[in-house]
């Protein structure tokens, strides 16, 4: 049952060194505030899971929080590369980074399996690609009715999933809408979960297309206004595209990045 706590408290309670941590949000509602709090609290050795590790994971990797990255598309959307991720992969700075790479369909189905309490998911995917030779969580399975061979992916069950949402009620039920991505699956697949929200309201008036996460599947809810910035929160604020472009210069250079990191840690 979700407790409404401060973000530092929630991260301290739920995210531990060495955990497998998923911060989800497909371009929209990316939990930047929570990611920054993980950096501030100095977590180490995390396995970071995310379909689209964009700026937030570039920042966590650059800050030395990550030992491994599980992902399906790693870039700065509309801008270019993730330079901290590239640097960690190429030179091991500031820490060596292992990767486990999938397609979007594979990652999405891994969360579906995790949310469904199944050890694997079946999909039409990967056949003929070079990914299966590099990724041990891709295999095949035979249909017991037709004999057809299909791809199988191992379930993902993060130790903790963090999502950002528009709002929660006082009981800790959480509501998000717009592009809802894979957040429901990522939360339901996790052993522990945290939702940061723009605001807490008396009643969750139904919204078209909204996903509701009941309080009893969450461990903590923390208020974090603009907690998805520089990504966006549908109906609250727009994406700060300039910040995404500026990240390119900051992240290209270890010195510039280190200055950014000190600013964050002092905040």
């Amino acid at each position: 049952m979700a407790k409404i706590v401060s973000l530092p408290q929630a991260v301290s309670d739920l995210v531990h060194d060495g955990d497998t941590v998923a911060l989800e949000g497909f371009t929209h509602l990316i939990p930047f505030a929570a990611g920054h709090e993980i950096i501030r609290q100095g977590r180490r050795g995390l396995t970071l899971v995310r379909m689209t590790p964009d700026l937030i994971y570039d920042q966590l990797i650059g800050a030395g929080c990550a030992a491994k990255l599980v992902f399906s598309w790693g870039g700065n959307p509309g801008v270019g590369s993730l330079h901290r991720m590239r640097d960690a992969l190429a030179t091991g700075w500031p820490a060596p980074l292992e990767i486990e790479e999938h397609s979007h369909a594979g990652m999405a189905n891994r969360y579906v399996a995790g949310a469904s309490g199944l050890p694997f998911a079946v999909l039409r995917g990967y056949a003929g690609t070079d990914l299966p030779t590099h990724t041990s969580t891709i295999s095949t399975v035979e249909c017991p009715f037709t004999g057809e061979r299909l791809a199988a992916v191992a379930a993902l069950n993060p130790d903790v999933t963090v999502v950002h949402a528009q709002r929660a009620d006082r009981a800790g039920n959480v509501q998000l809408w717009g592009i809802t991505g894979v957040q429901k699956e990522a939360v339901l697949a996790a052993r522990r979960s945290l939702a940061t929200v723009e605001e807490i309201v008396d009643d969750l008036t139904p919204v078209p297309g909204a996903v509701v996460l009941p309080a009893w599947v969450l461990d903590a809810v923390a208020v974090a206004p603009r907690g998805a910035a520089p990504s966006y929160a549908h109906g609250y604020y727009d994406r700060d595209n300039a910040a995404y472009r500026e990240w390119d210069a900051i992240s290209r250079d270890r010195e510039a990045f280190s200055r950014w990191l000190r600013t964050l840690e002092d905040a």
Partner: protein
Amino acid sequence: MTGTTDPVSATDPLSRWSADEMMSIAAARSLRDGQACFVGIGLPSTAANLALRLHAPNLVLIYESGTLETRPEELPLSIGDGILADSALSVVSVPEIFNYWLQPGRIDVGFLSGAQIDRFGNINTTVIGEYDEPDVRLPGSGGAPEIAASCREVIVVMRHRLRAFVEQVDFVTSVGHGNGPMDRQLLGLRGAGPVRVITDLGVLEPDPETAELVLTALHHGVTVEQVRAETGWQLQVSADLMITAAPNPTELETVRGMRTVGSGES
């Protein structure tokens, strides 16, 4: 590269166009009205939105963020831009968009780009060089492998450069025609794979016999030699080589009028 310099209209901006504009227009023309199109971000998104504004008002645009039948007023900057959700008939979850909408083969066209493509239309967006010690680490798969596998046909839009059009890709992220004409069937892939690669120089299509990409059209003003110079295999030229019609004023005005979300901010 620029278009014709007909002396009468040399000063008319609609008599000149960039190679990128020609590419987007040629790619847009290849989409038919009423088709369902699974759109990759970047060049494919530009071309698909252009088609929607030109000859295909009923084109069904689907993005991997879960936006079904979206009509963004401006070009999205990323696959999950809010403008895609605002104008969508329906927004579904990411697992649903892949499992219910893409995977069964109900999408007519997959519209992709890539960092490398080889002579069998296989696409690489993962690494240049070795996987474990790459020369360049690229973003990775995203939705492309399953778009390439499952759509009824695939159209690729890429700038034609020697480093990108290679004999064999360093890493097969998305399967085109594998190593030849029967490979897709052997792999159990049900879509037809790449039927057309539209570049800023011309159009390549798989030879029906060999599945190798051959040059089937040159854009207005481009020569076969120019294309061969930018292609990393012994490019064959179709006996029926076409010349792409020059962009018409409506096409040019439309492509130039499209704004990208947030582009006014910088």
